[in-house]
């Protein structure tokens, strides 16, 4: 068997096996000597290292193995576990806005501003990791207090909640009722 041919056969064997294969076993399967198998393996290894490749041939003692280069692992991970894209509903966006600017707030505080029940949108923001529970207000019923998370800051690329732009100035119609601007 020619060395080029042996290279090809070794490549096929290593690929199908996935695991490390002993050089002696390869020689036996190809009906060549171990020396010949070794030099074919060497040639194959050089070939793989010559051009940058996504996979490479590694030698561990008397074993050969085909494996991925570490630098491509992130792509593999991203493929196996794709980033989940989600978007916020208008309702969730409003709830988030109230929490962001008034934190910490209770569900009732939010509902007072929005004028609708907010259990669902709070739950959805909690699930998405944008807000979290930061304790309870020590009033009747000890309601949960909600605030934004580090993931929220990360998403907007800000270090601190105070970096959120100030609310737009609007002339409040009544002193006592500073609505949301």
């Amino acid at each position, binding site marked *: 068997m020619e060395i080029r041919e042996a290279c090809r056969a070794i490549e096929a064997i290593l690929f*199908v096996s996935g695991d490390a294969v002993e050089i002696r076993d390869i020689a036996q399967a190809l009906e060549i000597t171990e020396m010949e198998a070794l030099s074919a393996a060497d040639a194959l290894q050089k070939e793989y290292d010559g051009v940058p490749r996504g996979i490479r041939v590694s030698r561990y003692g008397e074993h050969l193995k085909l494996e991925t280069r570490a630098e491509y692992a992130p792509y593999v991970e991203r493929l196996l576990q794709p980033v989940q894209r989600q978007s916020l509903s208008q309702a969730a966006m409003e709830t988030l*806005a109230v929490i962001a600017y008034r934190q910490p707030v209770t569900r009732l505080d939010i509902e007072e501003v929005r004028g609708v029940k907010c259990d669902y949108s709070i739950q959805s923001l909690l699930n*998405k990791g944008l807000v979290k529970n930061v304790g309870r207000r020590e009033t009747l019923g000890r309601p949960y207090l909600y605030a934004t998370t580090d993931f929220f800051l990360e998403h907007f690329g800000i270090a601190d909640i105070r970096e959120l732009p100030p609310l737009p100035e609007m002339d409040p119609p009544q002193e006592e009722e500073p609505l949301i601007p």
Partner: protein
Amino acid sequence: MPIYIQLKQFDGPLDLLLHLIGRAKIDIKDIFVHEITEQFIAAVSSAPDFDMEEASEFIAMAALLVEIKSRSLLPKQQAEDEEDPEQLLIDRLTAYRQFKESTANMAEFEKSARQTFGKLPEEIPLPPPTLEIDGLTIEMLWEALLRLAEREPRERHEADLSLRDIRRDHYTVENCIRSIREHLKKGPVPFDELFGGKPSRQEAVTLFIALLELLKRGKAHVSQSKTFDRIILHPGRRKHSGNP
């Protein structure tokens, strides 16, 4: 010549018909010229593995063959637009044979494809899934706030909770407890005097919770001489006089 045939060998009546036609070395269109019909009926009726479930298609075909044969004995009385059942059957057999033959090609492809091998997937421990939220921008947050502002203002009880500032609670239960205990050091105090001039709702609620907490801890007790009379707060646990 009797024919012994196991129906199970055949994928249905068309398959059996093709087999008989093939064995007789005739063309499909000569199916009614030859004795194929008789052979088919004989094969079905003498089948040793006669299973009603599977044989129903064979029986239906036998009936069709007999019908076609008997029609040919009668003078033609077929309407113009009526399809000739004999021609229909011949067409079906022809089409079926095409597909049957094509499976030989497919089997060839399959065979050569079997000469290539894949590799088992690697087992990879995965990091926790990452989440990305689309369309969440500061502009969108603002828009949400503006929508809220445009909405009909509802009655607001706590003006101090404006969106303008992020403010801590003014009143905490712990602070209220401390202030009540200060009052109690001087002796019994009427409950309403605990509050300032015009308590906000938050202040009233927090003070009341603080009071309940003190009662629970046994640091204070209350008395009231009659319903709707003033509630007087006393320091310490109520001393039981023995009355039930």
